[in-house]
């Protein structure tokens, strides 16, 4: 029987503009935070394995081999360390591989650190670098970008299901309400539906990025890092940590066609659905068991579409739940309690790790007042790579 895996340490930088800093330093900050949280900083050389999640430091920072750099910054030699790259889903992929390392018996204590510095380049360059994950021949070389895909996806969804731009704004208002209270969020500010949708100045205050996506339908370009310390809960070593473990109940990933045009229905995010189903099966749970979720809202439409693929809402109906306030912090199923990528930010390599940090904070009851979910038992995250071609899901449980 595979070992049970738990999280005993979490670390996070304040997301935002860290472009003056070295990526390895920013990652080391989050890693130190996680080790201190676990009461394991002094024993860090006893860690069995380090996995570093990063998408594109070679392009953003002209820096490679960041796992090696991190180990030296942390004075952790000779702990083995490898880089995990899976586009914007690198973070959750690293969590999954850490889980596999422990469950397989190869390791008892694994440190996962995700990080990205995206603001050393201009916003346009950052958009271009992120777009390199698209199919070179048929997408990237044709000028497609991720906001471009987000805009097209949103338009199709609107035409099929009756979603409006105001519904997108309602998602943003909800997420910013949470992010404004999150000490780690990039944009710690609320927004109002009057200002970004209903008022006469909304067209300028909330301008189009890739119609129908507006500024408040799109995540900012963000720097930051997050870290987790995972342990074999069945090992005698599990007793040496300061914090009670939060169990990783389910972890899974799935893929879909690299090119979006090869999908029968581009509105169906098959990889999300399959990763979610596998994670539910592993955890012995279903959508109704989930207390709250962190979903990859690089564009707010994705929060809606992912929530439907996970079975939280009927297809094409999630925006009605948003209108009813069901996804607010005091709703039936709070979504993106951290502020999500929209408000907390999206340093691509860090995002999947950061989402799991939020699951742990909520399950421990350590979220800030006003955004703490009441008595949560299970939290679920979905980290979305490419335009849905490589997706990882994680379910954490408070036992």
């Amino acid at each position, binding site marked *: 029987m595979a070992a049970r895996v738990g999280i005993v340490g979490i670390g996070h930088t304040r997301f935002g503009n860290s472009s003056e800093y070295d990526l390895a330093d920013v990652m080391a900050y989050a890693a130190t935070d996680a080790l201190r949280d676990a009461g394991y900083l002094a024993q860090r050389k006893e860690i069995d394995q380090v996995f570093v999640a990063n998408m594109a430091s070679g392009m953003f920072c002209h820096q490679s081999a960041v796992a090696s750099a991190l180990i030296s910054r942390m004075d952790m030699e000779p702990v083995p360390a490898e880089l995990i790259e899976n586009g914007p889903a690198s973070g959750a992929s690293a969590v999954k591989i850490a889980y596999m390392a422990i469950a397989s018996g190869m390791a008892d204590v694994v440190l996962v650190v995700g990080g990205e510095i995206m603001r050393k380049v201009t*916003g346009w360059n950052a958009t271009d670098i992120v777009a390199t994950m698209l199919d070179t021949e048929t997408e990237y070389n044709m000028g497609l970008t991720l906001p471009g895909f987000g805009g097209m996806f949103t338009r199709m969804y609107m035409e099929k299901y009756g979603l409006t731009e105001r519904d997108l704004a309602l998602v943003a208002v909800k997420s910013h309400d949470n992010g404004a209270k999150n000490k780690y969020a990039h944009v710690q500010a609320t927004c109002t539906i009057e200002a970004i949708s209903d008022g006469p100045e909304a067209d300028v205050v909330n301008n189009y990025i890739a119609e129908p996506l507006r500024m408040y339908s799109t995540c900012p370009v963000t720097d930051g890092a997050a870290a987790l310390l995972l342990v074999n809960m069945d090992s005698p070593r599990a007793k040496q940590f300061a914090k009670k473990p939060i169990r990783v109940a389910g972890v899974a990933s799935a893929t879909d066609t690299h090119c979006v045009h090869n999908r029968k229905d581009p509105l169906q995010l098959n990889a999300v659905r399959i990763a979610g189903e596998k994670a539910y099966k592993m955890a012995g749970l279903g959508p109704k068991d989930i207390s709250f979720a962190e979903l990859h809202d690089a564009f707010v439409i994705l929060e809606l579409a992912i929530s439907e693929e996970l079975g939280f809402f009927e297809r094409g109906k999630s925006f009605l739940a948003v209108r009813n306030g069901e996804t607010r912090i005091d709703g039936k199923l709070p979504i993106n309690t951290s502020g999500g990528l929209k408000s907390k930010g999206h340093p691509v390599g860090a995002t999947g790790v950061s989402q799991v940090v939020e699951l742990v904070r909520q399950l421990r009851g350590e979220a800030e007042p006003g955004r703490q979910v009441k008595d949560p038992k299970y939290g679920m995250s979905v980290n979305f790579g490419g335009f849905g071609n490589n997706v990882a899901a994680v379910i954490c449980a408070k036992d």
Partner: protein
Amino acid sequence: MAIDEMEKTLRPPEIALKPYPSKLITLASGEKMVVREAKREEIGVLLGTVYPLIGVPTDYYDIVAARMYSELLGWYRYRVANEFVLVGAINGVIAGIVTSRHVSAKLGMSLHTMTIKRGLRVGAQLFAAKMEHHIDVLGEDEVWVVAESPNGFKRWMIEYQMEDRSAKYPDVRHELGGVPTFSLTKKLWDAVKAVKCTGSRPVSDADLKSAEKLIMPSEYPQLPGFKR
């Protein structure tokens, strides 16, 4: 000649500029920002707002703040011709300041844009208000603009698709040191103002009153832990 009289001879000739009509902008946060022309007697609070940022190198705040400080003094001391200062205030607290100069009936010279409150496009709104004053209110044909920071270059030169006049140096030379000069022509402005410039007029008496007495910010996102 008395010293006071002598000082007056040092002042540049001034053209009486049309006043900028105040407007009210609802920011994404829902906060109401009054944009209005600053008055010379408000110089103390303006300088006090800018001064702490002179020591902030991030995002080139240092050079913008230092130069704006000098422009504000030049305006207050009557050492710059036809300069105007617009201010954005939320409940009286200064959220941003812009400085600029009317050179002639045809030409405006944009000086600096200083954003204190970040993340709500305050700087973008104030820059747009400045261009609105130059072209729509003062009737100029074009405004010359330079950027001190990559942020400024992105926001102004690229987003407004300004004309690059740097090849015409030294015939076209912005007053801020002859660095690459871009132009926002009336034609370009008319093409972008619907998506760049907003605000409602007239401003109610209550909202105008809220911005009557300007207040220095008590905190700066650029200066964590700042204490005045």
